[in-house]
């Protein structure tokens, strides 16, 4: 179990849970980061803020403070 902001570009992972305040959680769920969905880290900006991921066939940029709240399980590197 890891947090999304710690993953390196190219890593694929499955979303296990969204933690943190409910406003942010709802926003992330609304962007398609639901439990069980697969995502891939595409690239990181300097200091990993923001980071770009691919989920449900589209690209999504997340702030580090947002990505920290996504609990994932790494599938492949």
């Amino acid at each position, binding site marked *: 179990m890891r947090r999304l902001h710690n993953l390196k570009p190219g890593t694929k992972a499955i979303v296990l849970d969204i933690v943190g305040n409910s406003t942010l959680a*709802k926003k992330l769920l609304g962007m398609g980061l639901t439990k069980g969905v697969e995502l891939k880290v595409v690239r990181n900006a300097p200091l990993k803020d923001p980071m770009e991921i691919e989920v449900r066939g589209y690209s999504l940029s997340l702030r580090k403070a947002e990505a920290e709240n996504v609990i994932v399980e790494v599938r492949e590197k």
Partner: protein
Amino acid sequence: MIRVALAGNPNVGKSVIFNALTGMRQKIGNWPGVTVEKKEGVYKYRDVEFHVVDLPGIYGLTAHSIDEKIARDYILKGKPDVVVDIVDASNIERNLYLTMQLMEMEANIVIALNKMDLAEQKGYKIDVRKLSKELGIPVIPTIAVKGVGIEELKNAILQASKVKREPYVRYSDGIERYIELVKSKIIENSILPNYPPKFVAIKLLEFDDEIMREAGIDGEVVEKWISSVS
């Protein structure tokens, strides 16, 4: 006059469809009190006049951003006759999230399934008839930049304006039980009677700040209601 609202995610070709529908007959202003652009236009189709409002591009209707709040308020309070939901066929899964939320609001929806050419290039094969049947909503494939499907869309909007269809999202039995319970409380206490009760029930179960504030109900009340189930 039939009132039509255009809704859709950012970058789905909403403006192109707005222009294709209304042509030159447009008015650009602001939404009251905020510096968000409001585009309105009119067109005539088979001797019927249509007034079109272009809602801000949004990913959802949670009312967390000003754009989402404008769109949500317009659909709930302005009650347009028809809501055209513009869905990017090349990014369909992401886009259908907004569709589900519009369905929850019991809007009278017509889907313009746009960018069909891009979807095809991506190798997607979309069964439009099945999609329409599953959702219970008319789905019109379009390639707006080439003007493909605009006549069909105008016709679908006209047809939809004649029959008020209320789409229905069915959740799993467990969730539906909670929705039913909260819905009965809402009706019993005539909470937000101008909104669809099932929509209010879902939003209260989500502890949606905006709806809780409008209803004058806090999370504890909802918790108490739902504690009697199970």
